[in-house]
Each structure stands twice: as structure tokens, then as C-alpha cells.
């Protein structure tokens, strides 16, 4: 028994020593700035600045925490709610603006810059105006009549029309299209052309399809369908930018335009490649890369990671703005936590990252830069999607919901679009039910906010 007790105690002590040895250096003279964000090309490209920044700022240690979308969202909110101050810089999307500002979790740019001596903010006039206003502005928490700048955008995102060049440049296709429609085969600039092309390229016997649509829940279908909704002149709420609005904002969804948009969208079903309900951006690009689909709407920030390799870009695909006059404006901003012990140092890094020279470096590594002049760099301009990206960001016009009701609206629209796709509802009925649900749920949400 004595031997077993001794063995047991020895195991416990060894375990403690092993655990302690796993915990690395405990003394660290440097100031650690912790940055959390969704694991995308945005944070991955930002991580390429670490070495240069730390060598020029020897007292700073940058620690990046790329997480899944869910983890980044939950950890950030938990950190803010519990005031644990784990993260200094949070890279989050515009739907978090309302929560962060309303609950006084983050500094505004004014708070941060007033303590800086001559900060170099010359890049501000170079930011795509629509992007900044969409992802980095919010109501002054004290006064809803005025707006404050909360954060600089870490990226400018949009959706582009991605097309299969071989299918469009094929001479047999060109001749057949000319014969059928009486016009040359070219990129669609209107939604009518888009529909004709989707039909034209679909040939089930040959296994070719006109389009690949994202129909998965979790934001994918919602953002995809918003392009179609706005393309037909429809809107969800009566406001301009996504974060605007309050409990009195009118719901405009129940309109002929929205019904047309849903009818149009579900009308593409015969031309669609993939299972629809499990297609998200990665799956969509995988299907496009099979070379059998003519067109799809692709997020700009997955293009580089999906199509660029050591030998260069996959040159089978071209890019243009989506049909119509407007493009989706998405993205997120840098937020600095009010619990951060080093807000000044955190702001220094953000200002460094936003300088034009660094934005060019980041763009070459996959970032969709929020600075206009970045796209004049010769290497960035040579990327197949750069011109289309710049054009789309300049024109803007489609803003996803970004208020406290944004996820609810996403889920409701996803539910009814999916059900219409599978034939459960007709488009008019689906739009009516979705509108009723949004109105009811918005009441609940804004009452809960008032109570808090």
C-alpha cells in the first residue's frame, strides 16, 4: 500500500510538472496586443505585418487569434460582456456595431485619436466612402441625431460576378447564342441578360449549368438573395445603411419587387448546379472550379485564397460587377475594447496597418483593401478580380442589415427563401409570411433593448 501511495504521488507530481512546462514563459516584458477575428484572408494577411511591426516596435508583441466565425463572435461578446479584457483589437462585422456601441464596449475613433500627437490619418480620405460609412459609423450613443466614427474598416468586401471564361469564349457557344438571341455573347449587365445566360448555358445532357447559387443557412443564402432583391428594386427596411433604424423603421419587404425577386431567384432552379441548401462560398467555388458552371456570385475575400497558387491565379475565370447598377457593401471594422489595458498601442498598430504602403502589402496577400489607391498598385491591379472589385466598391448601394435585428432578418429570409425553393410556399405567400414574422420579432427585440 505504501508503494502504491508513493507511485500515485509520483504520478501527480510528474503531471503538475508537465502541465507547468506546457505554459511557456511566464515573465514577458513586452506589451502584448491581442487581436481576434474570423479566420479569413483578412486576418491572415494582417498577420504578415507582425514581423515588421515588432521589429520596429520592440516593446510590442502582437498575438493574433484567428477563430471560426462562431467562436470569434461568441468570445468577443463574452469578453465585452464580462469585462475580462482578453482582447485588445476585435475585427468584427458591421452587424456587431449596434451591440458594441449601444453597450459601450468599444472606443470611438475620436476617443482614441484625441490622445495621439499628430497621428497620420491621411489615409482617411482614401477609404471607399460607402464602405467606411457602412461598417464603421454608428449613432452617437448619447444622441441619435449625430453619427460617430467607431472604427476603421479592416476590409472592403462585396460580391462579384465570377464567370467561366472558356464557356463564354467558346466559338460554338458564341455562334449559338447569337443565333438564339440575336446579340453577341457577353457578360450580363442586366438581370434579364443574366437569366437568359443562365438558361443558355444549362445543358443537363452535357452536365453544364448556367449558375451556382448559395442556398445554405448561416448568412450565405441571405447575402446571395439580397443581390437579387435589390436588383429588382426591393428592400427589407426603410433606411439607407444597415446599422440605421430603430423600432419605428418601416418594414418594406412586402412589395411587388420582393415577390418578383423571389420568383426570379427560384426561377433559376433548373439552371442551378449543386444541392443548393448545402452550398456556401467554399462549395460554390469548388463547383465553379469543376469547370461546368458558367456564372456565380463570389465573395471577393475568398477569391485569392481559392484561386491563387504558387504558380499564379487560375486564369479560367473572369470577374465583373454583378448585374444592375448596385453592388453589395460588406466587411468589418477594427474595434478597440474599453477593457483593453493598452488602447493607445492597439490604435498605433491599426494606424500602421491602414497606411497605404502596408495596405498594398496586405492586398498582395489577399486582403480586399478599403483604400481606393491600393488598387492602383501594379501587382494588385494585375489580379483578375481587382478592377471589378474596385468598380463594385465605388458604386455600392446594397447594404445588408446591421442592426440588433440583423441576424433575425437573415434567419427569417433564409427560412422562407429555402421553403419557396423546395416548393412549400409560393413567392407571394413566402414574402407575406416573412414580413409578418420580421415585424413581430422586431417588436420583441426593440422592447428587450428598451428594457435593458
Amino acid at each position, binding site marked *: *500500500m505504501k508503494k502504491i501511495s508513493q507511485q500515485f504521488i509520483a504520478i501527480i507530481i510528474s503531471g503538475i510538472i508537465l502541465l507547468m512546462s506546457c*505554459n511557456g514563459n*511566464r515573465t514577458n516584458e513586452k506589451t502584448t496586443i491581442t487581436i481576434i477575428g474570423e479566420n479569413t484572408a483578412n486576418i491572415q494577411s494582417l498577420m504578415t505585418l507582425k514581423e515588421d511591426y515588432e521589429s520596429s516596435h520592440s516593446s510590442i508583441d502582437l498575438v493574433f487569434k484567428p477563430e471560426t466565425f462562431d467562436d470569434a463572435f461568441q468570445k468577443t461578446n*463574452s469578453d*465585452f*460582456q464580462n469585462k475580462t479584457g482578453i482582447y485588445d483589437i476585435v475585427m468584427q462585422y458591421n452587424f456587431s456595431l449596434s451591440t458594441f456601441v449601444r453597450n459601450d464596449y468599444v472606443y470611438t475613433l475620436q476617443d482614441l485619436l484625441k490622445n495621439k500627437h499628430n497621428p497620420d490619418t491621411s489615409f482617411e480620405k482614401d477609404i471607399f466612402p460607402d464602405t467606411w460609412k457602412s461598417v464603421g459609423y454608428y449613432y452617437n450613443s448619447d444622441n441619435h441625431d449625430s453619427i460617430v466614427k467607431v472604427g476603421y474598416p479592416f476590409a472592403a468586401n462585396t460580391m462579384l460576378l465570377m464567370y467561366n471564361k472558356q464557356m463564354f469564349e467558346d466559338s460554338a457557344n458564341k455562334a449559338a447564342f447569337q443565333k438564339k438571341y440575336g446579340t453577341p455573347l457577353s457578360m450580363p449587365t442586366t438581370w434579364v441578360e443574366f437569366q437568359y445566360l443562365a438558361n443558355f448555358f444549362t445543358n443537363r445532357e452535357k452536365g453544364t449549368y448556367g449558375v451556382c447559387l448559395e442556398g445554405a443557412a448561416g448568412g450565405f443564402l441571405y447575402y446571395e438573395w439580397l443581390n437579387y432583391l435589390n436588383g429588382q428594386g426591393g428592400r427589407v427596411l426603410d433606411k439607407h445603411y444597415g446599422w440605421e433604424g430603430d423600432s419605428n423603421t418601416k418594414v418594406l419587404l412586402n412589395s411587388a419587387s420582393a415577390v418578383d425577386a423571389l420568383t426570379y431567384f427560384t426561377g433559376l432552379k433548373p439552371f442551378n448546379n449543386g444541392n443548393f441548401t*448545402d452550398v456556401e462560398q467554399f462549395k460554390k467555388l469548388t463547383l465553379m472550379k469543376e469547370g461546368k458552371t458558367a456564372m456565380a456570385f463570389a465573395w471577393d475575400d475568398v477569391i485569392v485564397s481559392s484561386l491563387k497558387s504558387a504558380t499564379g491565379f487560375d486564369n479560367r475565370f473572369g470577374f465583373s460587377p454583378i448585374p444592375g447598377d448596385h453592388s453589395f457593401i460588406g466587411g468589418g471594422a477594427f474595434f478597440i475594447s474599453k477593457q483593453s489595458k493598452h488602447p493607445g498601442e492597439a490604435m498605433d498598430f491599426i494606424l500602421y496597418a491602414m497606411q497605404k504602403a502596408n495596405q498594398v502589402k496586405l492586398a498582395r496577400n489577399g486582403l480586399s483593401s478599403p483604400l481606393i489607391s491600393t488598387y492602383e498598385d501594379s501587382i494588385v491591379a494585375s489580379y483578375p478580380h481587382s478592377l471589378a472589385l474596385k468598380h463594385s466598391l465605388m458604386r455600392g448601394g446594397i447594404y445588408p442589415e446591421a442592426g440588433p435585428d440583423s441576424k433575425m432578418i437573415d434567419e427569417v429570409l433564409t427560412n422562407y427563401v429555402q421553403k419557396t425553393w423546395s416548393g412549400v410556399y409560393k413567392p407571394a405567400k413566402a414574402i407575406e409570411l416573412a414580413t409578418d414574422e420580421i415585424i413581430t420579432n422586431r417588436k420583441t427585440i426593440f422592447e428587450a433593448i428598451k428594457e*435593458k
Partner: protein
Amino acid sequence: MLKIPRTLLLRWTVRAALIVVLLYLYPYFTRVIHLKNFYLNLNQDGSFMTALFKSLAFATISSLAIGFFSLSIAFRLSAITPAGYKGKLLGLLMLPCLLGNVGTAFIWKLLLQDYPFFFKNPGTNFLAMLLVQFWQYGTLFIYLFWLNIHEVDKRVLHYGTTIRLTKKESFRDLYLPACRNLLLLLLGLQFIFSFYEETKLQYIFRSSRGTGAELISQWLHRTYNSDTLINSKYAFGHVTFASLVAVISIVLLLVVLILLANRLYQWYSGNRSVGGRKKMSPAKPVHPAAVSAGLFFFVLVILLPIIYATVRYYHYVPHPVMPLLNTFIHSLAAAGCATLFSVVFSIAARAGWPKILDHFNRRSLFFLILIFSLQLIPPIVLLASGYEWMKSISGTSQFYRSVIWVVGQMVLSFPLLASFSLFMHFNIENRDLNYLNSQRASVFEIARTLFWGPMKGRYLLTLLIAFSLIWNEDVLNSILSDTVPSFISHLQRVITGRMTDYAAGVEYLLVSVFLAASAVATWIYLTSKKNQFDGKFIVTGYPI
């Protein structure tokens, strides 16, 4: 000095352990007290009740189908003895379960995504899920039943052969009684796993309210995320109420299911017309070729999906791989602590309540539900509770947070490990306990003689399962991934989201497969070395 009666000491040890475990849910319990108005909004759009009913239905069908099917397969494989190479090969049946939910989801995503049939409608989604659940859990169940079947006293089997029992009579009268407790345990476990299924459905099928395949865990998760935009406290409050309804539903139906299964068992084993003696011929031995074919079929069923995923999607691309040693050491430490905690708990429980916990009955069922209470809580509530606890550990040292991580893993793995141990200890006879008590043996001597001695092999199996649970656990690992790098978080990062890379995902999967295969190999090696799984201690003191 006041001498505390041994039974009292043991019982209070058990109660203290339960209190420690339930302490994790303290943030949840405080929310429950302050619920108001959430009931008005609970089923506004009808989606909550729809998800709840679908979860209950899927869990019921899944548990009954997989439980009984696994038992029947194990019986058909009973001709395979533990000692031979076929018996060792059967250990591979543990492999899928040791890969965890995320690993399993990834394998089956790659396998099913090219077959539109499974994405047609919710019916085909759930049919595919039944297959996936069988692959992940049913194979382990087959193995556990098979082990149990070989526990049946050889003298009893010889008697059965002598009196020329038919196959069905052998199953009903000899093997089924030995498997009854395990069957009820596994039915309950499978019910809970299926009720709270989310990861695989979400990842493979992108299930949603719109596709009609949303289960309750997913409903809670998306509601929590949506309400977080109001604030996290509101979000926690809302899911607290909803989860309370879910927990009450699952407890009620679980109790009904287990009692029904028990009644079914009693009917079947008492029904002399079942397996009737129309033909007076005894059970014919199973042809060895048939047994081999069955064995190799199952080995293929386990290995083919993994091989397919690797061959189809893997290609070497140099990229940084997370440092695994840190995670491995933490997981091993936590597995050791969790196994010890659960085993000590279940020994104390068995010895402290000998008349209640000597076999499965209504009173031991209540005890088990109490142990399972943490397992009955939805994962999103465990996650939210964990984030609440972060308040208390922020600002502490890295080592302290490592210890908290280990303790947290002990708590979260406790329900499964403790219930598994408790069921194992049903094999301990009360007469042996009474004998040692009458000889005034100390608690330590009782533990060593009755528990440790005969059950070393099973405790090893518990340790392996504990390691797999902790390595693949995705709640605490996610919350404290800044403290202990989480393998599962890294795997999720490369198989979902905007930086998806299937080749990298397969690399991480192969690490999981390697660890699982190592655990299985260790188990096979150690058990074949002893050439027996468990001995039995009887009153005369001579092992069988």
C-alpha cells in the same frame, strides 16, 4: 475522535462530487430563478416546438434502432473469441467513436456531398444521419455488447449447450440478461446524443429551419447568437428558459423509453413462446467463414470512409500545423484525472448504496438521471455557463487556467464516465461486498480487491474513452483555446468558413485517426497480454 460510519462517509463523498459537478451550472441555475416573459416569445414562429418534436422523434428512433441492431450484431459475432486475432481485430469497432463529432462530420461530409439523394428532403437527411450515428456509435455499442457477451459464465453456456437450447433461447435466456443493463445504458446515451445532435447535421447538410432538419440544439444555438446582438445576458436568459423546456422533455421521454425498453425486455425474456421449440434441434455453430465475412465487413465499414476521404482529398501542401504536444499532455492529464474522479465516485456510490446500485431498477435510474443531469443540458448552455465562469479566472496565471481547464474537462466528461463506471460496477456482487464488510476490510482494501483487481481492463477502456472525449470536446476547448490550444478548434477552422482547405482538414483528421488507432492498439495489446478482460471474485476467494 468522532468515528464516521463508513457508509455515511461514502455517501457524502458521492454527494460532494455531484455538488462539484453541478457547480459548473451555477450561472445557469441563477438565470433560471430570474426568468420572466421569455415563455411568451418561446414559440412565436412555431420553430421551437417543431425542433423539439423532431429531436425527440429522431432520438427515439435512433436509440431504439441502433441499440437493438447493435445487440443483434454482437450476438451474431459472439462466435469470435477475445483471444484470437479476430477478437483483436474487433477492437477496431471502437475507432469511429474515438474520432469525435467533428472528425466524423468531416468524413461523412466528404463522402455524402456528391450524392444529391441525401440532400433531397429532411427525410433523406435523417436517414443519412441514422447511418452516420450507427457508424459513430453503433460500432462501439457492438463491441461493448460483444465484450459483455463474453462475460457470461462459461459454466452457464455449457449448460445451455448440454440442454440443447436453440439460438433464440440462448439469446433470450443466457446472453440478453447479461446485456440488459448495458443495453439500457446505451439506449439512454444514444438518445441523449441524438437529441442534442447538431455538429454533424449542420456540417454535412447545413440543416436549418428552412430545410426542415433543424433540431433543438441548433435552434438554441442560433437563437443565442441572434439574441447576443441585444446583449449576452439577454441571450443566456432566453436560451435558459428554452433549454429548461428541452431538459424536462428529454428527461420525461428518456424515463419512458428506458422503462418501456425494460418492460419489453421483461416481456421478451419471460415469453416462452419466443424462440419456441418446434424443432428440437440445438443451436448450430456458426460457420467460421460467415463469422469472418461479418467481421471483415464491419472492418471495411469502419475504414472505407476514412480511406476514401484521405485518398480523394489529401495532397501535401506545406503549411504550419498547430503544436500538438501541449494539447496532448493537457488532454492526457485531464483524462487521467477524469477517469480517477469517475471511478472513485462510482466505487463510493456502489459501496455506499449497495442495495440500490447493484442492478438497474427504478431507484438506480433516478441516481443515473442525477449523474446524467450535466449531459442533459444543451451544449449552448454549457458554453454560455463556461463564458460566465471566465469572469472569475480572467487575470489569473497561465498555470492556474490550465488547472481550471483540467478541472472543467473532468466535470464535463463526468456524466458519461461515471455512468459507464457505475454500470460496470453492477457486476460486483453484494454478497462479496457484505463478506468483506463483515471481515472489517478497509475501504481501500475493498476497492483494491473487488473493483481494481477484476476491473483494471475496463478502467483502461474508460481512460481511453475519457481521452477521446476530452481531445474531441468542443465546448470548453473553444472557451479556453487561448489557454490550451484546441485541436478541434483548429480542425473546425480548416474545414469550415472562408479559409476551408480540405487537404489541411484531412491532415488534421489523420492525426485524430492516428491517436484513435493508437488507443485501440494499446487496448488490444494490454488486454491480449493478460488474455482475459475481467476476472470475478467470489465469496470463497478463488477467482474464476
